[in-house]
């Protein structure tokens, strides 16, 4: 039972199935009680009319009905009967009873009684009786009426009630289903919000949602914020560490120049090499931190907005060389990839290009389904063989230029995460290295590959 709709329907059906029979039972009881009360009081009046009509004649003790009695007591099996039981046990019945007898109970003087009896032609009778004394005779007068018409009405009422109850149940279920569907439709906006969030169009889910879902949305937004904070904190942490290590490292460099090491030039050279490596690694981390900047997780890379900023950062890093960095983004290029990943990818390749370029670096982004990124420089470039070598991790073609081969390796890793393609070749326009990357903008990083290795 994992559907809220089913659960609600079950609850409604069960409660109505419990309630309706109770109402049906109570209603039937009330209708029957009302009918029998009415008939009972009429029987009492009839008994009194009969009593006034009875006169006792002569010695045979037979009461005689006068002409004033209702003819209904004369028509055989009419449904209205009376029966008079004298003190000596002799019984005289209405003509309507014909050859049948009424089931008579003994009623004590001053008492009245009411009971059910079966009558002729399968009739059910309500009998009202009282003990009377008139003209010196004591007798019990019982008056009866057929309940069949009342029972027919009651049965009709019961059928109508059952039918209406069933109809009401169906209508309620349909209405409930409509209400539920209408309510859940409002969840679609939350889903649309989540898609926008994934596209990087918004930073948090809209809180204009039904009250019941608001806590969930709020919790989601809080979690989103927390994740963003954690991510930027961990991204900044490496940068901060690198920055903090700079001071002690500079001290170590000064120690290298001390006279005590003059006797060991080889050791000094080795230490200096290692010190330079550490410095470069640190600078790389600092650069990464600067490139990443701020931003939320889940934001997509918007080339139109982000590329100018990235290039500005690179210009500052390489400001001594007065490079001409040109860029071009097709107007309808969609957002693609994770912002952080793309910044690191482009940053690394552009940084590499800036290092090798003499004067000019070109960067262009085009495509819709497939995003094509091309970064060219007018540096020395590479041969076909060298291009193949570049594809291997950590390979460096020239050890003399500042760098340690990690930049391009990281770029290759990111492209691999997105199942993209990276090609190194000779630039036709500028003659230097040309790096072409192809990514599918709908693609997300492969989750298997994201696991720490």
């Amino acid at each position, binding site marked *: 039972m994992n559907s809220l709709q089913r659960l609600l329907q079950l609850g409604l059906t069960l409660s109505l199935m419990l309630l309706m029979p109770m109402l049906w039972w109570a209603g039937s009881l009330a209708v029957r009680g009302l009918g029998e009360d009415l008939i009972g009081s009429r029987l009492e009046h009839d008994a009194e009319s009969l009593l006034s009509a009875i006169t006792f004649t002569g010695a045979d003790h037979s009461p005689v009905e006068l002409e004033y009695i209702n003819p209904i007591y004369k028509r055989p099996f009419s449904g209205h009967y009376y029966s008079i039981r004298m003190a000596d046990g002799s019984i005289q019945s209405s003509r309507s009873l*014909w*050859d049948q007898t009424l089931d008579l109970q003994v009623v004590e003087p001053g008492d009245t009684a009411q009971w059910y009896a079966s009558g002729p*032609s399968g009739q059910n009778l309500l009998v009202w009786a009282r003990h009377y004394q008139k003209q010196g005779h004591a007798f019990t007068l019982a008056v009866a009426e057929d309940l069949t018409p009342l029972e027919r009405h009651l049965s009709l009422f019961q059928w109508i009630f059952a039918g209406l109850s069933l109809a009401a149940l169906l209508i309620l279920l349909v209405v409930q289903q409509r209400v539920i569907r209408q309510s859940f439709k409002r969840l679609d906006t939350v889903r649309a919000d989540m898609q926008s969030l994934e596209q990087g169009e918004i930073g948090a889910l809209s809180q204009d949602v039904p009250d019941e879902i608001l806590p969930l949305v709020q919790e989601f937004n809080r979690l989103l914020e927390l994740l963003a904070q954690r991510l930027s904190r961990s991204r900044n942490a490496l940068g901060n560490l690198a920055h903090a290590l700079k001071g002690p490292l500079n001290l170590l460099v000064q120690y290298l120049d001390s006279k005590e090491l003059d006797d060991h030039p080889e050791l000094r050279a080795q230490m200096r090499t290692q010190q330079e490596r550490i410095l470069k690694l640190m600078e790389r981390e600092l650069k990464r931190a600067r490139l990443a900047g701020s931003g939320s997780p889940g934001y997509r890379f918007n080339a139109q907005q982000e590329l100018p900023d990235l290039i500005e950062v690179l210009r500052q890093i390489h400001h001594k060389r007065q490079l001409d960095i040109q860029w071009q983004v097709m107007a309808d290029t969609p957002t693609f990839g994770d912002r952080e990943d793309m910044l690191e990818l482009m940053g690394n390749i552009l940084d590499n290009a800036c290092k090798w370029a003499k004067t000019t670096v070109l960067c262009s982004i085009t495509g819709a389904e497939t995003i094509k990124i091309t970064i060219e420089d007018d540096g020395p470039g590479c041969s076909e063989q060298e291009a193949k070598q570049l594809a291997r991790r950590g390979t460096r073609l020239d050890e003399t230029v500042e760098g340690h081969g990690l930049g391009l390796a990281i770029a290759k890793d990111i492209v691999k995460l997105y199942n993209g393609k990276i090609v190194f070749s000779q630039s036709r326009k500028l003659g230097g290295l040309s790096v072409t990357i192809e990514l599918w903008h709908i693609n997300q990083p492969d989750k298997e590959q994201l696991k720490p290795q």
Partner: protein
Amino acid sequence: MNKLRYALPTLALACWCSLSAADDDHLKARALVEVGSILPLEQILKRVAIDHPGHILEVEFELERGQYVYEIELVDKKGVVWELEYDAESGQLIEKEREE
């Protein structure tokens, strides 16, 4: 006033006599049913319901040409009043006619 004093009992007696002729037939029928020489009215009415369904208006029990008969007056669904005569001993329909 004197006339009225005689007239009332006479009228009452006359009424009783005329009524008792029709009103007492059930007593005779009851006695005969009890000794088992005729069929009870309930059985006759069951046959009427098959032969000629309708609403029973009146039943009379008479001795006709040495034969006990139930004379049943009823109105059918179309509102036509019928008079049926049944042999009280055998329960056979003797006569059936529209009441004119």
